[in-house]
């Protein structure tokens, strides 16, 4: 009867909606986005087609992020890879009032102070970009190849600690993925569980 049909249709639609929750999968196309950076410029992912792109989620208060910034590791990575033509986008998805949120001025001052060298720092206070990429922690790294395909997603390295002393003997997944892809090899480790503090989305407690 009419009601049963309506019920099944509604059921199917709602079920489909829940399945479509998160949209990023390694090996598939990276979702395009348009966002504002800390200099007021508009950045889109598609404008960087033809380059490798690294997305780095950050929160300057999180002890895991600070491990990489205070030791200079993140800055060194940024410098090393941007010199080879990689586009490095730092993304701040913390909601206003929460740890890691910064205004454009504050972010620019922070970048200068830390001698960080990303191509751009994207401000995402509404968390739209973070949720689009299912960013869970800071740091959370995504590497995209020149064809727009996600080739790595997950942790920055294999030592999930807050101790900078672990960095020299950690395997850096981002560098490995970029080196392998640039030399035409398949990426050996394409997905790991990212480690860090949770991304401070709005409405999350």
């Amino acid at each position: 009867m009419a009601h049963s049909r309506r019920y099944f249709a509604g059921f199917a639609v709602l079920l489909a909606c829940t399945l479509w929750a998160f949209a990023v999968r390694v090996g598939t196309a990276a979702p395009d986005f348009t966002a504002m950076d800390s200099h007021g410029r508009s950045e889109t992912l598609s404008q960087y087609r033809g380059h490798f792109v690294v997305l780095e989620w950050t929160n300057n208060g999180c002890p895991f992020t600070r491990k990489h910034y205070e030791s200079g590791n993140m800055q060194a990575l940024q410098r090393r890879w941007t010199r080879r033509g990689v586009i490095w986008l730092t993304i701040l998805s913390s909601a206003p009032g929460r740890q890691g949120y910064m205004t454009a001025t504050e972010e620019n001052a922070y970048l200068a102070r830390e001698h960080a060298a990303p191509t751009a720092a994207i401000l995402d206070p509404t968390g739209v970009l973070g949720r689009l990429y299912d960013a869970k922690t800071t740091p959370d790294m995504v590497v995209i190849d020149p064809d727009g395909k996600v080739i790595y997603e997950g942790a920055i390295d294999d030592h999930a600690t807050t101790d900078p002393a672990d960095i020299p003997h950690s395997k850096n997944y981002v560098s490995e993925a970029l080196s392998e892809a640039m030399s035409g090899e398949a990426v050996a480790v394409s997905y790991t569980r990212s480690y860090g503090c949770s991304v401070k989305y709005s409405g999350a407690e």
Partner: protein
Amino acid sequence: MRLCRAISIGCAVLLAAVATAAAAAAPTPPRATITAKHVSVTLLIPPQQLFPGESFTAGLEFQMEPGWHIYWINAGDSGEPPTVQWNLPAGITAGSMEFPPPQRLPLGPLMDFGYENQVVFPVAMHVTADFHPALPQTRIAAHLNWLVCREVCIPGKGDLSVSRTSLRAAPALAVTDAAAKAVVARYESLLPKPLPAGDTAHFRSTPQGFLLDVETGVRDRAAQFFPLDQTVIANAAPQPAKPLPNGIQLALTKDENLQSAPQELNGLIELPDGAAYFIHATRGALQQSAGIAGSAGHLAGILGFAFLGGMILNLMPCVFPVLFIKALALVQSSRQERRHLRAHGWIYTLGILISFWAIVAVLLSLRAAGRELGWGFQFQSPLFLALVAMLFFFLGLALAGQFDLGLSLTSAGGSLAQRHGLAGSFFTGVLAMVVATPCTAPFMGAAVGYALAHSAGVSLAVFTALALGLAAPYLLLAYFPGWARVLPRPGRWMEILKQAISVPIFGTAIWLVWVFGQVAGMTALGFLLVAFLLLAIAGWFLGHWPGRRVPSVVAALIVAGAVAVPVWAVRSFGLPPSSDAAEIAQLIQHGKLAAANVWQPFTPSLLAQARAQGRPVFVDFTASWCLSCQVNERLILDNAAVEQGFRETGVALLRADWTDQNPVITQTLAALGRSGVPTYAIYPADPSAPAQVLPEVLTSGIVLHALNSLPKPDRQSAAVARPISQ
């Protein structure tokens, strides 16, 4: 002389060096506890003596400030578990840090696994035969690293050490720190165990993820799976459970980036009574539906209960007025032909059935979409409450005689009012269902809980039985109009009866208005009453010029305006759900609540805390729109004998307010096998003992009997039913 001076200087330097070295080597006093930011960590070594051949369980105790948590061995989407490095003397060995079963800690779109308030990690330690202590005291030391988080994360580390007497052989009388031993033993008892021998766990891949079948030996209604592998399951996804005859089946959503199906699923399964088992599920065939045959008889029993429940529902305060109306219509039509009467009965039944099915369909769709809703949710929307209150008020006006809606007293709209007969009966059915939902009658509670835990087909069958039960009395009267003939003949008394019926209708409207006031606040309530005034004005138009087109149109417009008023008012003035916690805290502080029993707002951590303190807990699941809840509270829970019983048994009192569809409470209800209110549960102090669910129709005797069957507490805690200390 020079030689002497050189020697004395040399001696002085040497002495100074030795002194410094000695000072540097002097042991720092051992600290068993570190108090760090938001957490304090203690090393618990229960035995006071260490001797060869001894085995004991040490504990690493973490006490967190409220709201702060540390993590399980698989922290989930973010965070890291604590780690320990032991510094042990020769001859003492330590096993690995054991992790008690965690809680799910949701964080927006993420899900972590960890512990709040307090947790002790047991560590098995053994003193071997190689233990040859040189000193009378032996020091056991540990270096710990941890991460404690709430909204932000604070990493911490520290060194703990404890000294114990060292002996060469077992003493005649071993001395133990009893309190420490008890704490460690409690958490050790919570540790997950392997599945009972002969029981297995299998899984199968599905498009969304996996179906995990776990045999636990008993039929389980709810469970949670905590994975040990980090990139296999989507941690935040809900895990719909389906009971099996001797276990449970969980539907798990896989991690989006899972490249290939795993060979094994490793993790923990936690059951509602606190039991936890290690799972190493292999790929395998699902348990066949041999279970269905066994549960068919069970299903028939449940359907019978549902039918009975539906019939009894006719007596509930929220349905009876509608039945009154139908009885009245029956009286008026008792002279019609039998066929018409039967048709009326069936159409009424159809109205109820279709409305039930529509609600069940929506409920199942929402359940499938992952939202946790139980039965009765329509009344949790303040706008819905307002509209139904206005409907009843309008009907009350018609019945009281302000205007006449014709035979179909129960039609909800102006146009429907003209369609007396079959359409009127249909909409009476719909109305009956609409008002029945929040009243969970005794039989209905268990049936609804059962149905929602089962497949869509079973849910539909149970609700159909319920709907038929609700419709049965009227249908019976329609089929045996002979019984209707027992009713008096139409006459002037009908008019009086009609006006008298407006009384329970207005009463229902008052109840709905009261609930609306609770949920949406006083200002919105004021505006709802303004809408009532507009309805009365519309009614005057209809009454003064009956049946005329222009006044009817005017009345309809006024009604439309009246409807717009609560819509706007709820949006502008609707209150967020008020929390009693602040009020209660303030009253306690001012000593106003010292002597009375204090009901604290329910949270799972408060429940666990009370049980950890050795107190049983009485939880009252209630909602402002649930009439039977209010009745039970005023008459039973607040009466002197029951209050005395609570005081004497030292029971902690928690009230779970479900007025605003709190998902945590819905989940707790599901774990008890219920999906609606009222529900009353007594959780014994022993965390491994199951909760006792009391019947919905309470009497003092039932409550006191249940309290008396609890183990007796010690005297001093029985002075007054104190709030749970935090």
